[in-house]
């Protein structure tokens, strides 16, 4: 946990929330419905797995949760406030690791992290960045340009970028891409640590092996709709397969849950 005095500085405005409520959210791109009447609640201290085939709407949902994309209908509540109400103070509590890693290839690993730390108004930037580089196993490459990094190294760096300001809501889109086994396991341990400290973590992934044992709750999307997930003690892979196979293509339920996770 970061020491006191390093938090995101957003002109002194603090904003905290213990749940995120997606309320009947739809999103259209032209005539295509990317999301269709999604309702979902995520609570503090919870890791929610967002699964589904390609094009199911997972990335769109993460973009809406990150406030980058506005829903066509419906609303998202962070605590009891919308994205418009939250503004910069809300963004100070959001972390996003997208498909694209949001890193500047011309800058070094250290310069990238320093830039984002300053952008978020963090204090003690130098030590904060050094710690992050050590956690990412990039201390020895800290002053190398990111353009020379492998995908896995960039992924580790991008994860540290997303976590620098210790977000309350962490949104991860395919976070295991390019990671080797050790890095994948380290990420799993890191996410569990964040959950234990009360963060809300939403992970969209196809890596069911690494996600097994990580997720507190499973949400399955297909064709922009939530599918109901039956409670079961079966493996994540089996539950996902059963959910996809069992439900008609247009089925949808609130929260995508029939009962317990």
């Amino acid at each position, binding site marked *: 946990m970061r020491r006191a005095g390093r938090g*995101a*500085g*957003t*002109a002194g405005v603090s904003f905290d929330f213990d749940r995120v409520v997606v309320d009947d959210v739809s999103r259209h791109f032209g005539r295509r419905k990317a999301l269709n009447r999604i309702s979902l609640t995520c609570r503090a201290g919870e890791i929610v797995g967002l699964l589904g085939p390609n094009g199911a709407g997972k990335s769109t949902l993460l*973009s809406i949760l*990150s*406030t*980058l*994309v*506005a829903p066509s209908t419906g609303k998202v509540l962070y605590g009891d406030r919308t994205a418009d109400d939250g503004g*910069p*103070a*809300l*963004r*100070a509590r*959001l972390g*996003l690791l*997208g498909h*694209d*890693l*949001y*890193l*500047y*290839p*011309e*800058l070094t690993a250290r*310069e990238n992290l320093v*830039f*984002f730390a*300053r*952008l*978020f*108004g963090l204090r003690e930037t130098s030590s904060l960045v050094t710690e992050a580089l050590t956690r990412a196993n990039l201390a020895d490459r800290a002053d190398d*340009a990111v353009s020379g990094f492998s995908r896995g190294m960039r992924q580790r760096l991008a994860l540290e*970028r997303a976590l620098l*300001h210790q977000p309350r809501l962490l949104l991860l889109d395919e976070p295991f891409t390019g990671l080797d086994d050790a890095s994948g396991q380290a990420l799993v341990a890191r996410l569990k640590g964040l959950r234990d400290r009360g963060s809300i973590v939403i992970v969209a992934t196809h890596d069911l092996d690494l996600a097994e044992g990580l997720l507190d709750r499973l949400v399955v999307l297909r064709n922009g709709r939530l599918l109901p997930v039956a409670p079961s003690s079966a493996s994540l892979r089996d539950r996902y397969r059963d959910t996809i196979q069992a439900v008609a293509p247009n089925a949808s339920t609130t929260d995508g849950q029939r009962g317990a996770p």
Partner: protein
Amino acid sequence: MKDFLRVAWIVMRKDFTVEMRSREIVYTTVFFAASCVLVFAFALVREGRPLEDAAAGILWIAIAFAGTLGLGRTFERERHTETLRALMLAPSDRPAIYVGKLLGMLALLAVVEAVLVPMVGLLFHAPFLASPFWMLALLATGTLGFASVGTLFAAMLVRARSRDVLLPVLLYPITIPVIIAGVRGTAALLQSTPDEPMARFWTALLIFFDVVFVTLSLWTFEPLMTES
């Protein structure tokens, strides 16, 4: 306000550092602007005598063309890495990002103009230094007017498929008043006796355009950048 300016400064400094590493945009933009002026020089200078009153127009056309190229490349870089989205996630007023990008663009155009003005002066026998204060005022206000709208449009079009075509198509009609004021003001200063009252008038008009364009850009940047 302090936080706003801090973020704008951080974004501008980042753009500067990135550009210093690659030097891609500054080299291509300056080379393109110089090529434009050379082409006009070949066409409009006969036996060492340039066409009368051509210098002012050529200077501003070269600035506009080079500026469009620079705007496109600056935002292409952010699009390629999707880092514009990361900037939009910063916990600050989003117009601060716009101001940071605008400052970077102004710095780039200042470099371009530092090359263009003496070059046009030499090739077209134009006395740009006859009234340096008003020349500088016209260049500064005209560049701000052009870059303020250009930065907004380039950011807005960053995800459009035909952005390279759409940027000039949208930008030039809107910035025509700025270009005209810049050309007329500069032409007034390049006469055998510089007409400073006329240059003052066109500078005042450019300041008016700047206030309108910057205000509108700050006002519309956040809604335009949220994917609604």
